[in-house]
C-alpha cells in the first residue's frame, strides 16, 4: 500500500490526532468515561495504521520488539509499584488515599491517574506486540 499517495498523506495527518486522542482518553479517565484500557488500544491503533500503510519494518524501527517488551513490563511495574508505595506509606496495597495523607481525596485522584497510566502503557505495548508478532510471522 506504500504507493497510494492519498492514503500515505491522510495517514500521516491522522496519526498525531489518534495519539493525541488516546492521551486525552487516558488522562480524562478519572473524571469521565475513559481510562487506560481504551487509551492504550487507541494509542496502539495509531501504530497499527502506520504499520498497515508504511510496512511493519517502519513500525519496528519506531518501536523495536525489545522496547515494546520493556514497556509492557514497565506498565505493570508502575501499577504494582504504586501499590507498593501506598503500602510503604502506611496504607493497604493500592490504598491511594495514603499517597497524600493530608488530603486522601487528592491522593485518590493521583493514584488512579498513575494506575491508569500503567495500564495504558501496558495495553498499548501489548497491542503493538501482538500486531507486530502476527504481522511479522513468516517474514522472520
Amino acid at each position: 500500500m506504500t504507493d497510494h499517495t492519498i492514503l500515505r498523506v491522510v495517514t500521516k495527518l491522522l496519526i498525531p490526532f489518534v495519539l493525541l486522542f488516546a492521551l486525552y482518553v487516558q488522562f480524562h479517565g478519572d473524571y469521565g468515561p475513559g481510562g487506560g484500557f481504551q487509551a492504550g488500544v487507541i494509542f496502539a491503533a495509531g501504530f497499527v495504521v502506520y504499520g498497515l500503510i508504511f510496512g511493519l519494518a517502519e513500525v519496528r524501527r519506531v518501536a523495536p520488539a525489545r522496547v515494546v517488551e520493556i514497556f509492557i513490563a514497565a506498565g505493570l511495574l508502575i501499577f504494582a509499584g504504586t501499590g507498593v508505595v501506598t503500602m510503604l506509606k502506611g496504607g493497604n496495597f493500592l490504598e491511594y488515599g495514603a499517597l497524600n495523607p493530608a488530603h486522601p481525596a487528592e491522593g485518590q485522584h493521583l493514584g488512579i491517574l498513575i494506575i491508569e497510566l500503567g495500564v495504558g502503557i501496558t495495553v498499548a505495548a501489548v497491542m503493538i506486540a501482538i500486531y507486530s508478532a502476527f504481522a511479522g510471522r513468516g517474514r522472520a
Partner: protein
Amino acid sequence: MIEHLPVLQIIVPMIAAPLCVLLRRRLLVLGFAILACWITFGLSVALLDQVLTNGVVRYEMGGWAAPWGIEYRVDLLSAFVLLLVSGIGAIVLTFAPRSLSDEVPVSRHYLFCSVYLLCLTGLLGIAITGDLFNVFVFLEISALSSYALIAMGGRRQALPAAFQYLVMGTIGATFILIGIGLMYMMTGTLNMEDMATRLAAVDGVRTGLVAFGFFTVGVALKMALFPLHVWLPNAYTYAPSVVTAFLAATATKVSVYILLRFVFGVFGVEFAFERLGLTTILLPLSLAGIVVASTVAIYQRNIKRMLAYSSVAQIGYMVLGISFATATGLTAGIVHLFNHALIKGGLFMAMGCVMLRLKSVDIDDMAGIGRKMPFTMAAWAVGGLGLIGVPVTAGFISKWYLIRGALELNWWPVAVLVLLSSLLALVYVWRVIETAFFKEPSERAQTATEAPLSMLIPTWVLIGASIFFGLMTSRSAGIAQQAAEALLRGSP
C-alpha cells in the same frame, strides 16, 4: 509489614514477572526468579504460621472494606494450599535451569520465567482471594500463562495440545463466569463469605441451582474430573518437563480448592449435598474416573502420558473424598490434594531427568535405565510406591482416610473399589520399575548417565517430603482435618 503478608504473597511473584523481562540475561533472570519463588514460599510459611496462631487473616485491597472491596481472606485451607503451591513452585523452578536448556530455546528462558511467575501468581491468587470474581480473574491469569507454558514444549504436538487445553479451559472458565454472574444476580454481592450468609436468607431458588450447575461443571473441566479430562493427557505429555511437573502438582489441585471453597464456603454442605444431592453426581464420576483412567494408564507406552492418566485417577480420589461430605472424607480429599502434589511433582521431575539423558520417556527406551541412573529411578520408584499407596509413603495416609471415610458411611463397595484400584496403580507402576531395574539396558540407555545434582536434589526433596509426610502426619493430615472441620461448619 506483617499485616501485609497476604498481599505480599501475590505481589512478589507478580512484580518479579515483569522484572524478569527487564533483566533478560538468562542466568540473571533464572537466579532472580528462583529467589522470588523462594521468597514467596517463605511468605506462605509465615502466613500459615500466622493463621495457625491467630486464626483467619484478612486483608482489604485498596483499603475498601469488605464486602464492597476485594478482600483477601486466608483461612487454614487457603494457607495450606498457598504453602503447597508456592513450595512446589519454588522447588520446580530450582530444578528447572538444566532441564530447560535442553527443552526450550535459550533465548526464551527469560520469557519462560516471566510466564511461570505469572502462572504462580494466578494460582496463589485463586487460593487467597475471598472475592468470587477475583477468583475468575486469577483463574484466567494462571490458565493463559499455562497455555503459553505448554506451547513451549519442544515437539510440535505441544501446539495442538495447548490449543485443546485453551478451548476446554476457556469453556470451563466461561461456565464459571456464568455461575458467578447468576450468583451475583441472586445475592448482589461477590464476597464469598457475604454471599453465603445472604444465600441462606434467599432460600435456594432456581437461579441458585443453575448457578451451582454451571459453576460445578466449569470447575470440573478445569480440574480434569472424568469424563471432562480429555485435555489433560496431551497437555501433560507434550509440555516441557518442568511445566508438566509444575502444573501437575498445582493447577488441578487449585481447581479442587475452588470446588471446596465454592461448595462448602458459599453454598454450604446442606444445600449442596442434602438438597442438590451433589454426592450422586460426584461419587459415580470419581469412581469411574479412578477405574477407567487407571486402566488406561496401564496401556500407555509414554510414561509422561501414563502419569497424566494416573493424575486423572488421583483427581478422582480427591473428589471421592469430597463427595462423602463428612469430616473424614474431606480430610482425605484435602490431604490427598497435598500428598499427591508432592508425589506427582516428584515423579514428573524424575521424568524430566530421564528426558534430559534419554531424550525420550518411552518405556521401551527406559529399559535398564535404573542401572544407569540409579538415583533418579530410585526416586521414581519411591514416588511410584506412593501412587500405589504403600505404607510409609504419603499416598498411604490419603488412602487410609479415604477408606475410613467410606467405612464410616458403611459404603462397602466404595472402600473395596478404592483398594482394588490401588492394584491397577500397582500394575502401571511396577511395569516401569521392572523395566527400569531388571531389564537389560536399551540402546539409548547404554550411554545414559546419572542426572546432574541440580536436578536430582530438588527431585529428592519432593520425594523425601512424600516419605516424611507418610510418617509425620500432624502437619499434613492434622491441618487437613482442621480445615475439613472448618469447611463443614461453614463460613464463620
